[in-house]
């Protein structure tokens, strides 16, 4: 069984392991098969901007470079916030206790989900039935999820269905909505002028 995480709702704490819900294993998956005129399977490659050099998938690498395009050893780099201050490392969710904050259904709608995990209570002191009680009254919890120690954790929402508890991780987006703060301009009915001066004789042009 996977290593458990300790969660704290503010009143009670409980341990649970998490298992990633793989979409392919739930719904199946589709592969695209590409063949040439002879029915032979094709590979994918890339054509460079010189128009003649072909490279295969996996033939490129990402390098960190400085302003002069000289490669920089990743071990020598340091993380800073955008204002230049040293970034603080956020510990992994597996280290210490993860504090759950009360959340709202809106948080769920604002979350751009990248992964879904299901809580697993096998061989743990607390049962799923006990923990499901923390979600009675359609409660949601928010927290910062960090699989590994990192400088920027993922936003996460924990919610329960009738029989299971899930964690949705991703990033919380904020939206700016337009609203009618000013009174709409009233538009009069289009005037139906019958003034003969307004009528142009196109035949004169």
């Amino acid at each position, binding site marked *: 069984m996977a290593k458990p995480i300790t969660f704290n709702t503010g009143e009670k704490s409980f341990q649970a392991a998490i298992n990633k819900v793989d979409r392919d294993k739930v719904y199946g998956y589709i592969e695209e098969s590409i063949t040439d005129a002879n029915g032979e399977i094709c590979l994918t490659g890339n054509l460079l*901007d010189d128009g003649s050099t072909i490279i295969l998938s996996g033939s490129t690498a990402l390098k960190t470079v400085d302003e002069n395009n000289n490669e920089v050893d990743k071990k020598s*780099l340091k993380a800073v916030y955008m204002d230049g201050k040293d970034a603080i490392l956020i510990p992994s969710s597996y280290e210490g206790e993860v504090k759950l904050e009360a959340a709202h259904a809106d948080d769920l709608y604002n979350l751009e989900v990248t992964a879904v995990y299901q809580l697993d209570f096998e061989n743990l002191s607390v049962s799923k039935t006990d923990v499901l009680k923390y979600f009675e009254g359609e409660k949601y919890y928010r927290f910062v999820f960090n699989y590994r120690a990192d400088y920027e954790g993922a936003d996460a929402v924990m919610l329960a269905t009738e029989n299971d508890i899930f964690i949705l991780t991703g990033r919380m987006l904020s939206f700016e909505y337009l609203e009618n703060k000013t009174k709409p301009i009233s538009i009069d009915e289009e005037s139906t002028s019958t003034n003969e001066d307004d009528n142009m004789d196109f035949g004169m042009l």
Partner: protein
Amino acid sequence: MSRYINLADEKGRNAEVIFSGITKKPLVKMVTPDGKDTHTQRVLKGKAENSCEGLMLQFKDDEHIAEAIIKNDADIDLEMTGRFLEETNKIYIDKHLKPVNKISKKEIVYNPDGTQKEERAVKETIANILSENPVKSNGKLFAKKR
């Protein structure tokens, strides 16, 4: 480039409006020890001819490939390896690593257990957001909790 969607309300009033994804700026960046900015650059490791597949086509077996690598560095193109890459174009290539002009596509659908379910022609999804008929709301509202 802006993307548009042709939207209509339940009264049939429509408008073409711009829509875009929401970007969230990173909170942290990586800098050199003296605080200078860095960026990530995509570089070329090797051309198709220098890949395992390319060397197998040229030298036919592992022994000859090993010999070519030891003698002539056949797995590296000294002119190209390490070159910075900007835009590349995806192409399909045949077993001889040559571009293919005429291709056939099909989809193979697998069950959750990995067994093959069916083979089918690629389903084409027709764009419906900027067509003559706008995307129309039916006016129904749902409780968020649903």
